[in-house]
């Protein structure tokens, strides 16, 4: 029977959430087809991770090799090329993460297997995968088909499919001998680097006023700082603000920044790209100010204000200060 591979992603001894999201999707896909769901785990001393996966899936293929300890695209690509050529899975699901972005296109090119990246959904129609992707910053979606092939590779956007776990099923763990011959010489993992922590911990704040590119220039930053101060909260931001150096990296909310869950998240001039939204969507109350009524941030907010931030924010700040004075 043919298989559907889910490539387990792990870092520093822990499986990453996207693995379970992919397993959930995989389970859904095989329910309608005569296909086995197989988790593929590459790493070193990963017994515990294999056991954890075997709770969720009938078959876990494990390749244990010291050269697979930390993610290295060259080593991963070689091992996966071997496994895929041997077992010919119909579909390989990989996370659209920093690892997946480095690996999937290289694997697909090597195997000459069609690839669709950053998909938010996938289904089979007449044995061919049909994927859904977001384009133009999340304003429109496309449905796309892949060129007919024996196998397909699809990368799934993290945090879009809700991971559902099944009762532990005690699946089989199959150890496969590592096909790696020598140390990869063209690419070496050296170390992890953790930028130093800043003076403000936005994950601990109850109130966040988060600013995006709509603020236009550094000189305008005080208007959001004043609002944050009035509300007794901290200033957070989207990525472009950090890229421009207007705030330090520890203020950034999103996939490559922090995940926050404040009581109030006030998004000011932020469009609501998925990389941003996945870092704040669990906030208790979200209010968004954006002059574009179609901005995706309004799909992640409870209340929306479709106005120029330069007009609303100062008035709102005054109102908050008045309110505080009168309630004293």
């Amino acid at each position, binding site marked *: 029977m043919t298989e559907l591979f889910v490539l387990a992603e792990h870092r520093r001894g822990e499986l990453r959430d996207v693995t379970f999201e992919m397993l959930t999707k995989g389970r859904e896909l095989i329910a309608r087809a005569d296909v086995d769901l197989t988790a593929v785990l590459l790493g070193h001393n990963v017994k515990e991770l294999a056991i954890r996966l075997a709770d969720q899936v009938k078959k876990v293929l494990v390749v244990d090799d010291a050269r697979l300890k930390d993610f290295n695209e060259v080593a991963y690509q070689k091992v996966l090329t071997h496994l895929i050529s041997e077992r010919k899975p119909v579909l390989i699901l990989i996370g659209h993460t920093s690892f997946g972005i480095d690996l999937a296109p290289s694997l697909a090119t090597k195997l000459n297997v069609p690839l669709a990246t950053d998909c938010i959904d996938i289904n089979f129609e007449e044995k061919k995968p049909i994927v859904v992707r977001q384009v133009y910053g999340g304003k429109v979606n496309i*449905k796309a*088909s892949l*060129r007919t092939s024996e196998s397909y590779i699809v990368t799934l956007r993290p945090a879009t499919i809700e991971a559902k776990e099944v009762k532990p099923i005690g699946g089989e763990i199959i150890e496969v001998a590592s096909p790696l011959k020598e140390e990869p010489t063209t690419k070496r993992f050296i170390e*992890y680097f953790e930028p130093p922590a800043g003076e403000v911990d936005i994950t601990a704040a109850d109130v966040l006023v988060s600013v995006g590119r709509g603020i236009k220039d550094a000189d305008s930053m005080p208007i959001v700082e004043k609002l944050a101060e009035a509300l007794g909260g901290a200033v957070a931001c989207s990525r472009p603000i950090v890229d421009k150096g207007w705030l330090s990296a520890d203020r950034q909310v999103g996939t490559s920044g922090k995940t926050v869950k404040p*009581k109030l998240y006030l998004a000011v001039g932020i469009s609501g790209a998925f990389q941003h939204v996945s870092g704040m969507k669990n906030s208790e109350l979200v209010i968004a100010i954006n002059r574009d*009524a179609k901005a995706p941030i*309004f799909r992640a907010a409870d209340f929306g*204000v479709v106005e120029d931030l330069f007009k609303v924010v100062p008035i709102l700040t005054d109102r908050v200060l008045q*309110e505080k004075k009168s309630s004293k």
Partner: protein
Amino acid sequence: MEIIVCVKHVPETAEAEIAIDSSGKGIKTEDLVFDINEWDDYAVEEAVLIKEKLGGRVTIVTVGSEDADKTLRKCLAKGADRAIRLTDKAFDGSDAYATAKILYGVIKDLPFDLILTGTQAGDDGYAQVGVILAGFLGIPHATMVKKIELMEGFTRVNRELEGGLEQVMEVGTPALLAVQTGINEPRYVSIMGIRKARQKELKVLGLNDLGLKEEEVGESGSWITVEEMFIPPVEKEAEILVGGLDAISSKIVETLRARGLI
């Protein structure tokens, strides 16, 4: 140092009204402003910084229509030395795979020590072209690069992972590096600067010049085909506050007070 940078000319859509065109597979672009892909702006800057330090030449390559010259001139004004535009009717409908093939068609015959691309294009967002191109060229790559240090025979790069963590890798050169935003501060160029750059070389090549066959590019040479474009269904939408700035501010304050946030 011979550095090649791949850049894409893309529509700015963050603040624009987007409408689907009559084919149902693309957007209407007539009223949109096009510019260099955000990620590629950082790639060009990085190339120019390296050239300023070590000397050499920066070549810009794009697959696009004549309109892309605006972006190419901008790159030349920033300090790139020459530009190549790859244009052909047959290229229409190319996905990341076919685009990488077209780029390979010209780059395979150019000298290079380093190739830079963006991590992704802001329009279709495949995040693939660079890595596929590296595969065709048989050179190593690294994506989501936030720092580049060039050494003898290799480069040490920081790759961005999730949650602010980075991974330091050593990659043998020549290599292809796909850069992430924030790696540097792209310089600003004036209209004057762009005008001056008009003297620099801008070459246009087509399908035949690259030794490619028609079926290898465009839709027939692609991995994926767009079947349909649609506005995403709205699962949840914010309650939009209306009634003027004062009324809106009052409503927000009331809501916050009701929740004990003020």
